[in-house]
C-alpha cells in the first residue's frame, strides 16, 4: 500500500509551471500547414499544363490563382494553432510564477 501522501500526488496534475516542451502537436501542425502551400507552388511540373481549362482560362493560371485563397486558409490555421500554443505557454509561465 502506498503511503498517505501517495494518492494525493497521483491526482495532482503536472506541477504548475512545468515548461511546455519545444515540440508540441500545435507547433508541428502549424509547421505542416505552412509547408503545404510552399511545396505545392514549388512543384511546378504538377501544374504546368493547359488542360483542363475553366471558362477559357488554362489550368496553369486558374490553379495558381486558386492557391492564393487556399494558402490563406492554411496560414489562418497556422495562426490559430500558434495562438493556442502561446496561450498554453503563457499559462504555464504564469503558473510557475505564482
Amino acid at each position, binding site marked *: 500500500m502506498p503511503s498517505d501522501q501517495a494518492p494525493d500526488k497521483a491526482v495532482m496534475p503536472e506541477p504548475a509551471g512545468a515548461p511546455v516542451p519545444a515540440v508540441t502537436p500545435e507547433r508541428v501542425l502549424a509547421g505542416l*500547414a*505552412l*509547408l503545404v*502551400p*510552399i511545396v505545392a*507552388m*514549388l*512543384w*511546378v*511540373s504538377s501544374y*504546368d*499544363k*493547359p488542360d483542363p*481549362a475553366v*471558362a*477559357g*482560362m*488554362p489550368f*496553369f*493560371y486558374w490553379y*495558381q*490563382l486558386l*492557391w*492564393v*485563397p487556399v*494558402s*490563406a486558409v*492554411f*496560414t*489562418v490555421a*497556422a*495562426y490559430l494553432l*500558434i*495562438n493556442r500554443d*502561446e496561450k498554453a*505557454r503563457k499559462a504555464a509561465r504564469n503558473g510557475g510564477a505564482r
Partner: protein
Amino acid sequence: MKDVNVPALVVFVLFFLLVTAMGFLASRWRRADNAAHLDEWGLGGRSFGTWVTWFLLGGDLYTAYTFVAVPAAVYATGAAGFFAVPYTIIAYPLVFLFLPRLWSVSRVHGYVTPADFVRGRYGSRPLSLVVALTGILATMPYIALQLVGIQAVLDVLGVGGGENANWFVKDLPLFLAFGVLAAYTYSSGLRAPALIAFVKDALVYIVIIVAVIYIPLRLGGYGHIFGAAADHFKQAKAGGLTLPDNKQWTYATLGLGSAMALFMYPHSVTGVLASKSRNTVRRNMAIMPAYSLMLGLLALLGFMAIAAGVGSGVKGYNSQLSVPQLFANMFPDWFTGVAFAAIGIGALVPAAIMSIAAANLFTRNVYKEWLKPAATPADETRIAKLVSLLVKVGALVFVLGMDKQAAINLQLLGGLWILQTFVAIVGGLFTRWFHHWALFAGWAAGMVYGTWKAYGLASPATKHFGGNAAEIPGIGEIGYIGLTAFALNLIVAVALTLVLRAVKAPDGPDETKPSDYSAEAGDDELENAPEPVAAH
C-alpha cells in the same frame, strides 16, 4: 507630341492633390508625445494595428513598378512572367515563421532596422555595416523604378512625353510629383505613406476588379483572350501559355528566391516593425494574400493587352507601356484617370517608405555607429529626415541621368543582393551558432558570385545583366542566380563557422536573450525593457 487626354489628366491631378493634402495632414494623425525620437518619424511610433498595417504593407510591397512590370513580363513572355503569383503565395507562410521573432526582439531592444538587430545579436560592427549598406544599395534603384512607373503613366497621358520636348518641360511633372512627395515625407515620416496607403489600395482594388471584368467583356471573354495570346506566342516563336520543361526550375527558384528576399528589403521590415504587436504581424501574414490575388489578376492584363492588339506591329515596343496603354484604349477617359491615379499613387507610397527605410539604415547603422556615436535621438531624427530627401534626389538623378535599363538591371541585382543578408538575419533569429566572420564571408561570396553571374548574362535589350537565371552548378538546371548565390553563402557560412569554432576564434557579445524572441506587447519583457528613448 501626342494629344493630352484631358479628362483623364483632370481626374489624375485631383487624386494627386487629395493625397498631397493627406500627406501633410498625416503628421497630426495619432500624434506622439515625443516627436523628436526616430521611432516616431521612422516607424510611426510603432503603433499601427492590424488594418493600418495591412494597408501599409500592401501599399509598400505591391508597388507601381509591380503593377507595370508584372503584366509587362506576362505580355512579353507569357507563363514565365506569372512567377510573381507563386512568389507571393510562398512568401507569407515562409515569413510567418520568422517575422514575429524579428518584431519581438526589435521591440524589446528598440531596433529600428535589420542591421540594428545584427549589431545586437552578433556584436559585430562590420557585419552590421554590410547588412545596412546592402539594404541601401538594394533600395535605391527600387525607388528609381517607382519613378519609371509614374513616367509610364505620364507618357500615355500625353503630358511631358514626346521625344522632342525639351528635357525640363518633359520631366516637369515628375519633378513636381517628387518634390511634393519629398516634402510630406520629410514633415510627416511614416505616417504619411500609412495614411495615403488607404487611398492607394482602395483605388487599386477598384481598378483591378473593374479591369478583369470590363476588359474581357469588351474583348470577347477569357477564352478569346487566351486564344489570341496563344496565337501571338506561336507566331513570335517566343514565350507561351505554359512553361517548357527546362524552364520549370527557373520558375520555382525565382518564386522561392524572391519570396525569401521580400522581407529582407528594409522597407518591408519598416512596415513590420511599425506594427504595435507580435500578433498584428502574424494576423497580417494571413490576410496579405488578398493583395496576391489582386496581383494575379493584374498579371492577366498582360494577355489582355496582347488580345487588344496593344503594341502589335510596333518594332521594339516597350512592354512597360502595355498595361497603361491598354487602360487608355479600353476605359472611358475619366476611368483611365482613376486607373492612372492608382499607379501614380502606387508609386508614391512605396517610394516614401523606401526612402524612410534607407534613411533609417544610414542614420542608425552608418551615421550613429561610425560617424557620431554621441548622436541623440533628436539628432538621429534630424539626420534621417535629411537623408530621406537626399535618397529621393539621388533616385531622381538616377532616372533622368541614366537610361531606364540601368535602373531595371540594378533592381534585378538588388533582389539578388538583399537575399544575401538572409543567412545573417534569419539565421540569427533562431540560433547564435553562426560566427559573425563566417556570415561576413558568406555574404561576400554570395554578393560576388551573384553579381559576376548576372554580369555575364546578355539579352536583346542589354549586353550585361540581361537576366536573372543561369545554370546551377552541380544540378545542371537553369535557376535563379540569387538563390544559387544564397546557397553558396550558406555553405560558406556553415563551413567557416565550423572552422572558427574549432580554433576557438573570439566571438562578439550577444545582447539578446532567448525570451526576447517571443515577447509580446504587454509582456514582462516589454514592461521591463528600457524605453526606446533611453535605450539608444
